[in-house]
Structures are given as structure tokens and as C-alpha cells.
């Protein structure tokens, strides 16, 4: 039985339909990430699950119990807000023990639970400070600690890493992953960053305009995108999308004709640089980005196709060089005019797993 079940969830803001019929089942202990571009409704969906916004249509069930119209204080869910939302007039200890105090738990037990959570999050030395006296990363940990202490049925994270700097973000991401490994709690995590989605999730839900585009494990979404949007959203740099007009040589990929108005998707790692004339097309190098462990080469062809090629080594190319681009036809994804996948590419990595 699904732990958390969403059926036909709808939400209107005035006349604007923001959430358009979401169906989703989440298993116990799963780490689900809602990902999508700004305005796709992922935060709204999270708030609907939390009970902070009213569900206009559909049903929400937790452990078989219908909680669609239950007040948020009674749903036994804990939320970590993007801005942390710590109580400014309370110390770290009081912030973390607030929910337990409201539930009239014995003070000795409260002390023990808060102590344990503080230890996990390295907050023991800060228990008597107020949020004003903490750094951004420390406040973030207090916000997480406040949720952990309650041992709720589901953890809800609303873009918790957006307000942190890049180094702290990477570090905290790893801490969150470890926390989930140790606590095994059901978690719903909202982010616009697909790297967080790929690294933290058991399953990823890609949202666009209030609808689910695809649900699957991170690698499923990477290797077998259901449509052009998901293909370009997951993976960085994004998948190369070329049409026949831009690359006539792609007339038939792997023996299959490309559909009229259709698009061919090529992952940067499935392209290779070669001597001009020996590849599928020739092009001019626009830009070379050396990232140390890999190199990204931006090539544009005379017909107007823009390609990004990923190499696992350094190269001596410079802007303006003429090169040939070789494609791995087996790895190409074919999309029809409306963006749906008609043929999924095979890559060596995909075949292996």
C-alpha cells in the first residue's frame, strides 16, 4: 500500500489552474524529489501536501487515512522551509523543542531527543544561541533539526539549499543524503537544481506547468526520457537537440527515418570530435570550456545546429578551429513534433545498468 497517495490533486489561484490533476504514490522510506523550472508548481504541490494551502479537488491519503482537509498541525508532517523560518525570539533548543512542548511531552524526554538531534547535526555547542547569532549553514541545520526531533511520518523540504553558498550547498547535500541513509524516513524534497535531484533521489518527479512530465529513478530519467522537456531538463550540459533542417545528414538515424518536424536528441558524451570530413558533419569550434577532468566543446555547423561535445580528456582545440563531429547513432533519441519520445537511445552506460 502506498504510504502517501495523491489522487487528482488540483489547485486554483483565482482563475489560474496552477496544479492540474496530480496522481502520485510514494512508498514508505522513499526519498522523492520534485524538480522543475520556476513556476511549475512544485512548491505549491509541497504546500498542498503540508496543508498550508487548501486542496481544491482530489484526495490526499497518508497511511490509508484521508488527510485532504485536515489541518496542517494534525497531519504529523514536518517541513523545512527555504528561509528556515526559525522562531527569532527562541534559542536553538527552544526552536527544536517547540513541537514536542506543544505535544506536552515530558521535559526529560524532550531534552534527550533534542540532544540526540543536536549531536547528529553538530549543534550541541549552539543550543543556547538565538538564530540571530548563527550563520546561514547553522540556521539551516537547526531547521532540519527541528524537523528530525519530531520523527514525523514524512519530511518535507522546500528548496532548503537555495540560500546557501556553493561550497556549503555541496556539503549540506551530502549531509542530507547521509541523514536519509541513517534515518530512513520518507522524504519529499523540492528543488529546481537537477544535480540535487540526481544525487539525492530514489525517484524523481519532473513537473512542468502544474503537471507531471515523468516519474522515475534519476538514471531512468537520464537514459530514457519520456519527452523532450525531461531530456533537456535532466543532465548538464543539456542534451543536444537538432532537427533535420539543421543537420540533413541525420536523415535516418540507425536506419529509422526521422519523423517530420521531429527532433534528434544527442547527449554531449555520445558525440566525438574527429578530423573534418570523417564525421557526420563538419563545424566550427565556438568555445572550449576546460573543467579540469573534462572538456566541453561548443561547435556550430553551417546549417545552424549548435552542439556541445563532452570529452573526458584535455584537448588542444581553440575557437575557430574546423572539426568534424561523429555521432553514436545508437545513442540518439528520436522525438516527434510534439516532443514525445519515439525511439530511446542506448548508451554503453545504460546497457550496463
Amino acid at each position, binding site marked *: 500500500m502506498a504510504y502517501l497517495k495523491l489522487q487528482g490533486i488540483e489547485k486554483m489561484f483565482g482563475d489560474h489552474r496552477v496544479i492540474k490533476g496530480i496522481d502520485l504514490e510514494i512508498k514508505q522510506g522513499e526519498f522523492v524529489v520534485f524538480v522543475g523550472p520556476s513556476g511549475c508548481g512544485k512548491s505549491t504541490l509541497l504546500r498542498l501536501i503540508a496543508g498550508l494551502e487548501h486542496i481544491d479537488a482530489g484526495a490526499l491519503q497518508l497511511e490509508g487515512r484521508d488527510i485532504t482537509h485536515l489541518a496542517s498541525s*494534525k497531519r504529523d*508532517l514536518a517541513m523545512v*522551509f527555504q528561509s528556515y*523560518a526559525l*522562531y527569532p525570539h527562541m534559542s536553538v533548543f527552544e526552536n527544536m523543542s*517547540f513541537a514536542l512542548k506543544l505535544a506536552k511531552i515530558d521535559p526529560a524526554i524532550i531534552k534527550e531527543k533534542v540532544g540526540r538531534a543536536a549531536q547528529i547535526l553538530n549543534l550541541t555547542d549552539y543550543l543556547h544561541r538565538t538564530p540571530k547569532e548563527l550563520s546561514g549553514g547553522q540556521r539551516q541545520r537547526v531547521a532540519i533539526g527541528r524537523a528530525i526531533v519530531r520523527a514525523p511520518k514524512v519530511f518535507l523540504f522546500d528548496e532548503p539549499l537555495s540560500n546557501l553558498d556553493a561550497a556549503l550547498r555541496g556539503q549540506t547535500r551530502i549531509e542530507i543524503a547521509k541523514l536519509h541513509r541513517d534515518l530512513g524516513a520518507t522524504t519529499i524534497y523540492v528543488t529546481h537544481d537537477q544535480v540535487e535531484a540526481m544525487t539525492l533521489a530514489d525517484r524523481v518527479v519532473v513537473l512542468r506547468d502544474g503537471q507531471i512530465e515523468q516519474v522515475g529513478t534519476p538514471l531512468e530519467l537520464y537514459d530514457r526520457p519520456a519527452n523532450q522537456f525531461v531530456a533537456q531538463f535532466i543532465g548538464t550540459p543539456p542534451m543536444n537537440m537538432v532537427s533535420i533542417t539543421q543537420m540533413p545528414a541525420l536523415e535516418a538515424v540507425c536506419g529509422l527515418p526521422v519523423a517530420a518536424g521531429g527532433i534528434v536528441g544527442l547527449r554531449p558524451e555520445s558525440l566525438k570530435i574527429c578530423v573534418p570530413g570523417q564525421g557526420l558533419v563538419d563545424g566550427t569550434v565556438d568555445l572550449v570550456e576546460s573543467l579540469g577532468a573534462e572538456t566541453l566543446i561548443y561547435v556550430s555547423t553551417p546549417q545552424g545546429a549548435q552542439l556541445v561535445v563532452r570529452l573526458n580528456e584535455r584537448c588542444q582545440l581553440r575557437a575557430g578551429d574546423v572539426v568534424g563531429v561523429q555521432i553514436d547513432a545508437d545513442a540518439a533519441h528520436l522525438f516527434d513534433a510534439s516532443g514525445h519520445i519515439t525511439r530511446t537511445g542506448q548508451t554503453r552506460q545504460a546497457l550496463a545498468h
Partner: protein
Amino acid sequence: MNHSTRHALTFYLRTLTTWGVTLLLFFPLGWLVLTSFKTELQAISVPPLLFFTPTLENFAIVQERSDYLLYAKNSLITSLLSTVLGMMLAFPAAYSMAFFKGKYTKDILMWMLSTKMMPAVGALVPIYVLAQTAGLLDSRTALVIVFTLSNLPIMVWMLYSYLKDIPNEILEASRMDGATLWQEFRLVLLPLTLGGLASTGLLCLVLSWNEAFWSLNLSAAKAGTLATLIASYSSPEGLFWAKLSAASFMAIAPIVVFGWFSQKQLVQGLTFGAVK
């Protein structure tokens, strides 16, 4: 003139001007206090007397003749009651406007403010007739109602400004933690807005205490406030300067003392939002 001399000159000029303006502003009150300790003859002497033997006879006469304590009590009761009543009505309104903003919230706030722009005298006749019909002329009830209603727009506006500054997410977090509306108010909202509540309450207390227009028109001997008391000393028999000064001094003394002790909160309340 070199730089440091000019600097010193500017400094002294500024200090002198500030003192000058302050003394000018303080002068009426200072003279009032001085005059209240003089006899009537001393009060009208030319040139004005600065040094004299003070006497307390005026205060005694005022109390004896027109029962200062009754009017003071009325002022106190009407001010306190109207402040408390106003807070009880304004706070929920400000709360809903700050945290549950609707399509018409801004319009409602503007409209509330606009009612304060009308001179009170415009509403004098209707309110007088209403009070008369309800048999509430010369009663503290009428004064409390009118004070509450005239201060309500200011209270709602001030409370709204304070509440708006509190991030809604903090209240949402308390809801997720299991707080009922009352717990959310008592444990999270109240501690955060205590300063704002105090400033608003104090300001309205002062406004109600100083209120003269409605007091004079709606009350007389029984429910008169200190404003009524002072006005009664400007009679056709002539102005009794010393007694008038004494009466005025007794009328403003309580609120000045009160304001002195709460000046920090009052300044905070009056300048909220001025510097962000």
C-alpha cells in the same frame, strides 16, 4: 577662516539654534507651570514676573470648585477602555489583513485612513443626535464608543505595519509544529509583536486622553473629561489666568509623566517604518 574654526562655528551655531527652538517650543508649557503657582494678581502683572513666592492656593480652588478628581477619573476610564476595546477590535483585523491578504485589503486600508481625513465637526450633528436618541449624552459610554471608533483606523494601520514585517513562514512553521491558532498567537506572534502592541496602545492612550472635541460636545458635568474641565475655566466672567493655568497643569500632568516613562516606546511607535 580655517577648517577647524569653521567646524567649531557651525557646531556652536547649530547648538544655539537647537536650544533656541527647544526653548521656544517649551515656553508655553513652562510659563503655564510657572503661572499656576502665582496668585491672580501676580499672573497678570506687567512686566511678567519670573521670580515670586509660589502658592498652592490655585490647585485647592480648582479641586474644590470643580472636582478635578471626577474629571481625571473620567479621562482615565475613557482612555483606558477605548484603548483596550480598540486593541481587541484592531488586532484581529490587522492580523487577517497582514497574513491573509485579499483582493480588497489595500482598498480597505486606504478607506480606513480616508475617514481620518474628514474634520470631526463634519460628523458632529449626526453623532450628537445618535447619542441623544440613545440617551447617552453626558455618559462615559458615549465617549468610549466615539474614542474607540476614531482611534480604530490608526490602530489598525499601526498594527498592520508591525504584523506585515513578520514573515508568514514563521507562523506556518508553528502550524506545522502543531500549534492551534491561539497557541500560534500566544507563543509566537505575541512575543514578536509586543513592542508594536505597546507602542500602538500607548499612542492611542495619549490620543484619547488629549481628545477635546467630542468630550466638549458630548459630555458635561457627569462624564466630562479633563478637556471639559479646562474649557470651563474660560468663562464669560473673564479669564482667571492663574486658576486656568493650575487647571491645565493638573490636566496634563498625568499624561506627561506617563509619556516620560514610556517615551522610548512612543517614539518607536511614531517613527515605525520611517527607517527600514
